[in-house]
């Protein structure tokens, strides 16, 4: 037990005695506290707590906040069902929700309150020069009011790999989709690796978003017009499909997905094991158990890796942990940059302290404790001046179009094809019973099955792809 733990534990013991006093306020709902619903748990939650403690000491006068932060902040972990916190019926509503799926802001806008005027000003072009993308996602197109403040951004097109393993076998990070398939092929065929029980890929298929992320990366790299087209919704019951699911690029993206997952021996632990692995388990499969060579995981995998190597010399981490960007369609094309974000939103009606809290989160130093101590955080505020880990810094650069005032759009396009997470913006069809379920079944149909992806395998995969598409079309048509 280190000193910090000891202090914290001993500090909580007398708390038990006083807790009854506080609870009386809580029972009647009169406690002077801002309730913040978050999706984080464990080390991430701890890091956010440090962020809040740090907020109290920061100078906020330039944001127009002269009064001290004179309220408590209660964190309510909501896990992955956090979106329900906004529209929740009857239940105790949080004052602020840290929404991990920015695409949902539009869906819930009727239940949200716009940011205070100073908040809109803070998000102005002067401070956030490339805020157009945010504006599209977070603002009301009629009034221009912003309904959310980006706090954290996530790079969801990262592939984490074992540097040393790659070096030992003369492998290099792929620069195109076909190179990636070639790399996987090389790894599968390598007898030495097979004897050592090392598979090419770890997959955390127990979490639906992990599956959708891989699919979206492939589609975005393949054809970004189709990616954008899928956002359009035509609620005409007579049309063949209310959304362009049957576009041939969607089919092709699914077939590519099948080529990757369908190969026997690709998935570490096999199909069933992948299906019960969550995203952190997949990261650990690579870096703790060393049974896989790489894993497609967002930048915040950094935190899990940091916990793993925490006690070891930093040189070990430097030699072992590598990251590359999810490959483009071809060597000359731009690679995909799939963006996630945690957005602070205010369920209506918002109290003054809740607004105050959100404004404080926009301070450029707000996220520093998380970035420096826990890792796995890229600040949304372009003016945040942080010391990232080597890998996070590499990924943060890809996001500069969102963050850095100096980057021009053209330069940005070369770095990558930037797009916000698709499934978030698709209403119900992007959720558990839509895309998640369809991809789960797809993986079950084709995963870990074919020794060679030959014509008969491709025929199977294509059939499974159409099953996904038909499920999605049917799903949306039923809900018209």
């Amino acid at each position, binding site marked *: 037990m280190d000193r910090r733990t000891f202090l914290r534990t001993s500090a909580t013991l007398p708390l038990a005695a006083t807790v009854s006093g506080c*609870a009386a306020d*809580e029972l009647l*709902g009169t406690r002077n506290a801002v309730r913040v619903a978050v999706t984080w748990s464990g080390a991430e939650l701890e890091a956010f707590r440090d962020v809040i403690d740090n907020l109290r000491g920061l100078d906020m006068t330039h944001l127009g906040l002269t009064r001290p932060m004179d309220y408590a902040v209660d964190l309510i972990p*909501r896990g992955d069902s956090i979106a329900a916190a906004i529209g929740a019926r009857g239940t105790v509503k949080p004052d602020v929700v840290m929404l991990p799926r920015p695409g949902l802001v539009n869906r819930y806008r009727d239940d949200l309150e716009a940011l205070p005027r100073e908040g809109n000003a803070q998000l102005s072009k002067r401070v956030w020069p490339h805020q157009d993308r945010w504006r599209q996602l977070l603002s009301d197109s009629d009034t221009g009011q912003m309904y959310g403040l980006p706090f954290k951004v996530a790079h969801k097109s990262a592939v984490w790999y074992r540097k040393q393993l790659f070096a030992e076998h003369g492998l290099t990070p792929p620069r195109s989709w076909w190179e990636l398939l070639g790399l996987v092929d090389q790894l599968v065929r390598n007898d030495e690796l097979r004897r050592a029980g090392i598979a090419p890929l770890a997959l955390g298929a127990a979490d639906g978003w992990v599956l959708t992320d891989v699919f979206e990366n492939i589609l975005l790299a393949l054809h970004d017009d189709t990616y954008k087209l899928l956002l359009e919704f035509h609620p005409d019951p007579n049309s063949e499909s209310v959304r362009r699911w049957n576009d041939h690029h969607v089919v092709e993206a699914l077939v590519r997905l099948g080529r990757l997952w369908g190969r026997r021996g690709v998935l570490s632990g096999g199909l069933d094991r992948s299906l*019960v692995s969550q995203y952190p388990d997949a990261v650990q499969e690579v870096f703790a158990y060393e049974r896989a060579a790489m894993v497609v995981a967002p930048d915040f995998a950094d935190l899990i890796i940091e916990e793993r190597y925490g006690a070891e010399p930093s040189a070990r981490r430097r030699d072992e942990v590598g990251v590359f960007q999810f490959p483009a369609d071809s060597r000359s094309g731009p690679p995909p940059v799939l963006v996630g974000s945690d957005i602070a939103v205010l369920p209506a009606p918002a109290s003054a302290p809740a607004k105050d809290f959100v404004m404080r989160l926009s301070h450029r130093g707000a996220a520093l404790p998380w970035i420096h101590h826990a890792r796995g955080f890229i600040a949304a505020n372009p003016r945040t001046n942080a010391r990232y880990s080597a890998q996070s810094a590499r990924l943060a650069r890809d996001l500069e179009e969102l963050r850095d005032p100096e980057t021009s759009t053209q330069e940005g396009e070369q770095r990558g094809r930037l797009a916000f997470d698709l499934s978030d913006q698709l209403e119900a069809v992007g959720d558990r019973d839509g895309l998640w379920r369809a991809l789960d079944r797809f993986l079950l149909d084709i995963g870990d099955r074919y020794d060679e992806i030959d014509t008969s395998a491709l025929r199977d995969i294509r059939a499974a792809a159409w099953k996904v598409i038909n499920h999605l079309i049917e799903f949306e048509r039923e809900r018209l």
Partner: protein
Amino acid sequence: MKYDAHGLEFDLVASEMSGPLARGRYWTRLLLRLVLGLPGLALIAAVLLAPLVTTAVWATGAPEHITDFVRDPVGRNTLVRTGCSILFAVALVLLGFLFAHVTRGVERLWRVSWMVFVLPFGASALVSGTAFRLIFDPESERGLLSFVASWFGWEPTWLRGGWMWIVLALAFTWTWFGFIVAMFRASLNAIERDPTKQSRLEKAKGWADQRWLELRMIQPVGFIVGVIVTVAAARVFDLILIAAPGSTQFDVDVVGVQWWRLTQSTSDPSVPAAYLLPFTVLPLLFALIVMWRTGKSDSGSGVQPPSKPLDIEVGRGSKRRHLVGTLIGTFAVAVPVIVLLATAFHSPVHASTTGFWVPELPTLDSFARAMDAGLWRSVGITAWVAGAATVILMGAALPIAYWLAAHATSRLAKPAVWLLIGLALMPVQAYIAPLQVATEGLGIAGSRIPLILVHAAAGLPFAVLVLRGALQAPEKSLAADTLFGLTSPRTTIRRIWRQAGPALIAVTALEIVQVWNDFIISFLISGPGSSPLTLVLWGEARQFAFSSGTVAASASLSAVLPVTILLLTWRKYIVPGLTGGVLR
């Protein structure tokens, strides 16, 4: 006998004076009873009946959703799964009955074993789900069973397909088996103390006949146990959410969970309500059967608190078998406890990559992180909610129970008892959704008062039944007259306490444990974070294996209070209270 004297006619009645003292001013007394009974009646009407009717109206208002539900493979599967889990519960009760025999004749061992057996009953479904997901973790580095299996070169993925059902069934068994065994054991001992029943039993020929006769003799208790366990199986909710990984949940969702998913994805309340129709109708039907059966039974097998240990004689050979059987059972029940505690005392990083058997200096880091996630705050809130709900519950239940006991033969009593049994069997899913709408409409969502009231109301039918059973005395008996006759309020209270004290304590203890271990009511009425369990599930368990240490620490901490209360009250109050005639 009549005689005539000086024009006066005397009539001598040859029986002793009896009957309760009755007061002339009857109306004030009636009024007082009405006023005292009002809170309970209001709670039942407003928090149970009204929402139930609303659910039924929602469901029947759009019959097409009901046919959709039965036709849709997803809906049909959830229904079949729920049916299967109910069948499993019945089988489990029978198994518990048989195992109760194994634990007899080993009184000295049982003095320790019963605590191990009963302990899981005090822990929540979430705790058992956590323990079993830890044991069945498919990574051989972390999961105990996978570790053992890997010695034999066997690497099954426990948390998928058929295995998942076995994991869920074991977790459910762990929670309920000890309760079933202990209740049956107490009833069997009561038969042993009753010479007439004992001799009837000895006359029965063959093993099967004897067991069947026993089952009939202990029928009321058997029914209560069966009903409690069956309802628990039908309303399974949090166990699935915590124990099954996301992708597996598609294959194991039952009605109680699928209903909730639908409330999340549609705004039309009649779609999820269609799922609940069996939940609202079946308990009322079941209550009819219960009343019909218990009306016939030769009940009165109430269990008294043990004064001295019963000396049950079994042959030497079978004594050894009983000893070994009980020991194995005790050990099996203890394993999840050991796994949970051992994991909790590892550091979060260690617990996320290696099993608890890999030595590490015990540390409180995982507990510290659990507290960091706000465990203390929610413990404080829950303590208040549990306390307030219990006080309201007792205040509301006692007058109704008293009235029902005093007027056992009244024409109102039978339908009232039927309704109470039906409500006691009703899974909370059946009435919670309209309450959510109501609390929002009333604008009181910010306080915990709705939560307290719903908890009190949910526990009310069962509490009334238990208290009524304890207060009931044979009609026109001296006991009945002293209890229900005219006395000062103080004397009434004293007499109630003397008659039903243990039952009152039993109900109090069970209500606190119930509120404490509840997930679904606090989650749906007050939102996550309001109770320790919701906090664990929606916080730490999001990344289960990675957060193993914290999840185990939170689960262990949250179980300390209910388990302690249960163990302290079990033998002296809860067993006599529950067997003392809930259905009399």
